């Protein structure tokens, strides 16, 4: 099991934001907002930013390779695809945490899974092909792990715009 620590030991980490060049910053800020769906999308963005198209593509490639970007591509709205989507939480005793993590992560329906510091200490997103798949997957997780799963589907979504300025 690979677990990435989220909080680095010191603020002077090697991947400090000051390491980004102005071009990288501009690309990160601009491309979070979305690629225009035009015939020449990369060229149009590159022109906006005042750089060469090949430069933009090379930077994207490099930032994906070094993990600055986790993805570049379409962001799907799973709910709009007709599938099921929910947030779920579990209360797992420390002694069982590692075993249950492996079991929960083994489900391909589990898209993200975070440890959080609370009595409910495991939080994951479930995405299933059909809306009915959520209840069925939760039942399978409960059977496999032996612990209850608290289902917290969204009842209402309030509009936001995710943007990390660098």
């Amino acid at each position, binding site marked *: 099991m690979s677990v990435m620590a989220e909080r680095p030991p010191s603020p002077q980490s090697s991947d400090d934001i000051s390491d980004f060049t102005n071009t990288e910053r501009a690309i990160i800020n601009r491309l979070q907002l979305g690629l225009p769906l035009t015939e020449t999308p990369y060229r149009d963005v590159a022109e906006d930013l005042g750089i060469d198209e090949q430069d933009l593509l090379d930077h994207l490639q490099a930032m994906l390779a070094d993990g600055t970007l986790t993805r570049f591509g379409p962001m799907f709205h799973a709910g709009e695809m007709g599938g099921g989507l929910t947030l779920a939480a579990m209360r797992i005793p420390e002694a069982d945490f590692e075993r249950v993590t492996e079991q929960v992560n083994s489900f391909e329906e589990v898209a993200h899974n975070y440890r959080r510091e609370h009595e409910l200490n495991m939080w994951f997103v479930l995405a299933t092909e059909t809306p009915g798949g959520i209840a069925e997957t939760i039942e399978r997780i409960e059977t496999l792990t032996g612990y209850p799963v608290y289902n917290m589907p969204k009842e*209402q979504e309030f509009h936001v715009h995710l943007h990390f300025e660098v």
Partner: protein
Amino acid sequence: MSTSTLKSELLSDQDRELIMATQAGLPLVSDPWTELGSQLGMPASEVLERFQKMQASGVIRRVAAVPNHYKLGYRFNGMTVWDVADDAIAELGERVGELPFVSHCYRRPRHLPYWSYNLFAMVHGTSGDEVEDKAGRIADVLGDACSGHTILYSSAILKKTGLRLRKQKDNG
């Protein structure tokens, strides 16, 4: 087909193929539509049109870069959760969502006695103090309608694969 009627109404087989072909990423070449079209046996103009339609209908939010926010210095990720009066949450949730530093904002069910919070607002910051300050601004918006809150910090990413569309099964 194993998928629901709902889904087949929303997504054509060609749309599904495009999603399958790009969920790991859009080709990083000058003309990504032609590249995808040649993979799927579809004219480039149709690829682009299908993307435009999926974006207009909301199947695709946008085609965008997803940063690793830890690498960008946003290392503190606080899931702020609030116990908000049921008759006020619809209006107040909108106002919390409008705060520029909130990345996700949802109403979700309570699970008493373990969980009394019905409003979730994800806040990212470059320090714990920054997250706390931002939570304070949410508290200001909610005022007396809120009877309790807490901030859940994530201490480890246990899994992060993103939302994937899986291959359709052939069995009925």
